[in-house]
């Protein structure tokens, strides 16, 4: 809360100036560089933030149904004199840990562990913070046979139903339903170089161009940067990173994140559960521009949305 730095909107203007243009080769490279930063190997991961912004953190394990998923971290932490539940996908830094964490791709057990911890937090009256960082939910036969789709949808349903304040922060790569499964929140914050997209650039390249090498073009088409997500209304604020990116200074990145989180939680804690739930529903209800000839342009969302087709 020191100084005027963590000022979402004003900061966003700066980011927008950097990444918002939509044509030209140089811009492609800027956007691609930002997307690469979102998944930089030295970028802080979920536990890097949690361990820095909490005075203590107790991780919990298991879904009480089938297993424990190391790709998803969940637990209780002490944050600014209150207990807060933290949940997030966890990537690994070296090869062994990457394998152990399944590259941050959660299985149904991960979402169900998260739901279990959220339910406890809701009963105990603790705010919930999710940290989103995943290339997607795990695409494996075992995950499918144990209900990956239902795990994600029920996670969203539970998050919408929560009485306590909920903040989601996209800290790196937020791809696909696997990311959104932790994304139903009162506020969605995004780090400056994080992305939030319907699919990874590589996945889109394979599907839409039928050519795995078109990831850069796909990224340019999706432009899933924090600044654009803010414009679309998908993100409520963009959290600045240290100069050069979060990977250059984990401490400072965590400090800024913590300041944004605290300010956001204070805002939300001033509201009643009913107020939060109505606003939470409306927040997602209005996302997605479309054309409604009878009602005029039903441009449902967006702070700075493009004109209808």
């Amino acid at each position: 809360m020191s100084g005027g730095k963590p000022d979402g909107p004003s900061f966003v203007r700066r980011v927008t100036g950097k990444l918002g243009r939509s044509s030209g080769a140089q811009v492609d490279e800027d956007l691609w560089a930002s997307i690469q930063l979102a998944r930089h190997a030295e970028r802080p991961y979920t536990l890097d933030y949690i361990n820095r912004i909490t005075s203590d953190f107790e991780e919990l394990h298991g879904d009480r149904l089938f297993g424990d998923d190391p790709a998803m971290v969940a637990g209780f932490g002490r944050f600014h004199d209150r207990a807060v539940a933290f949940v997030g996908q966890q990537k690994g830094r070296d090869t062994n840990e990457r394998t152990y964490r399944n590259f941050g791709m959660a299985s149904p057990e991960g979402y169900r562990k998260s739901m279990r911890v959220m339910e406890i937090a809701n009963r105990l009256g603790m705010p919930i913070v999710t940290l989103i960082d995943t290339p997607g939910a795990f695409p494996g036969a075992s995950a499918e046979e144990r209900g990956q789709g239902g795990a994600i949808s029920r996670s969203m349903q539970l998050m919408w139903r929560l009485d306590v304040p909920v903040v989601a922060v996209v800290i790196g790569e937020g791809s696909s339903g696997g990311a959104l499964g932790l994304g139903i929140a009162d506020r969605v914050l995004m780090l400056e170089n994080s992305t939030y997209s319907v699919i990874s650039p590589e996945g889109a390249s394979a599907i839409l161009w039928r050519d795995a090498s078109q990831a850069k073009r796909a990224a340019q088409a999706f432009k899933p940067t924090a600044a654009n997500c803010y414009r679309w209304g998908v993100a409520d604020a963009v959290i600045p990173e240290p100069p050069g990116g979060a990977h250059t200074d984990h401490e400072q990145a965590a400090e800024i994140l913590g300041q944004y989180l605290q300010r956001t939680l204070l805002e939300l804690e001033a509201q009643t559960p009913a107020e939060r739930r109505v606003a939470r529903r409306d927040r997602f209800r209005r996302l997605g521009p479309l054309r409604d000839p009878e009602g005029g342009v039903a441009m449902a969302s967006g702070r700075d949305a493009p004109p209808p087709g």
Partner: protein
Amino acid sequence: MSRVGRNITVSIDRLRHLGHRQDRPGRIASDASTCPKCDSHYSGDEMRRNLRVCPACGHHFPVTAHERLEQLGEPGGYVELWSDLRAADPLQFTDIKPYVDRIREAESKTGMNEAIVCAEIEVRHVPCVAAIMDFTFMGGSMGAVVGEKLARACEHAAQKGIPLIILSSSGGARMQEGTLALMQMAKTVIALDALAEAQVPVIMILAHPTTGGVWASFASLGDVTYAEPGALIAFSGPRVIEETTREVLPADFGRAERQLANGQVDAVVDRRELAARIGRVLHILAPPDGEALLATPPGWAQGGAERVGRVAQSLPSIPGKIMGRIRPGSGDDEGPAE
């Protein structure tokens, strides 16, 4: 159509009554067809009469949304809702071709404005809201229009206090609307809860395919969930899984019958029994006012076979090997309506 605040109200007098339409939409589905499973050939009329199920082998062909409504409803037809909503192009998206061109092509190919049709309809005398996805329009993909129409359908059913029937047939979120398409998953999941608050049931029908962000949002949240035989039901499709994990998948991976064994659906229901089955559960959960209709039970509940049918219905109609358990001996007389 007017929007009040953030919520949707429908001015009924603006609704277009579409009734039975033999020609406009569903151009593809009305073509003559050769069964991909058994090579039998059928005229379009034969297909339509048999609800586009192969009479020889039971293969379920795709059905357009409007024909679905004709299959489900009463002779009186249905009243389509919000048919004029059309996609915007928020990302000014281009892959191999521009998104706006893709939409134009889908419109002219299908005669529809989007990949979903919502309607007021009576199913076995029970007034419902139906939201039927159509795979022929850009693979049934869910963009802002599909999300918006689904949300309005939920709100409309809750407001009227009548059941909602959703039929999914979709490859998932519409890539061309990017992150905003992803957000439709959230919108639909939240909107569905309006029905729970109104104590109104939602019947979910999973048709081929129900995958990606559709299976991972509203489609897996029905109070009662039926799947059509052979429908692929998965978050990640078989190709993605095989490419990512190098797993070799079983032939029936993700198919309705296997997902029944996985505990993911309540029953696999042949399309020719679907309207009766939906009507039956609606008569249990939300019968029309007056209850008098119960005095004349629907056809499938009459006769001496009734009890046999109900007992057999309690046994999942899937091969024993899938369950890993021995099937009871009563498998020969499955009863009429299962």
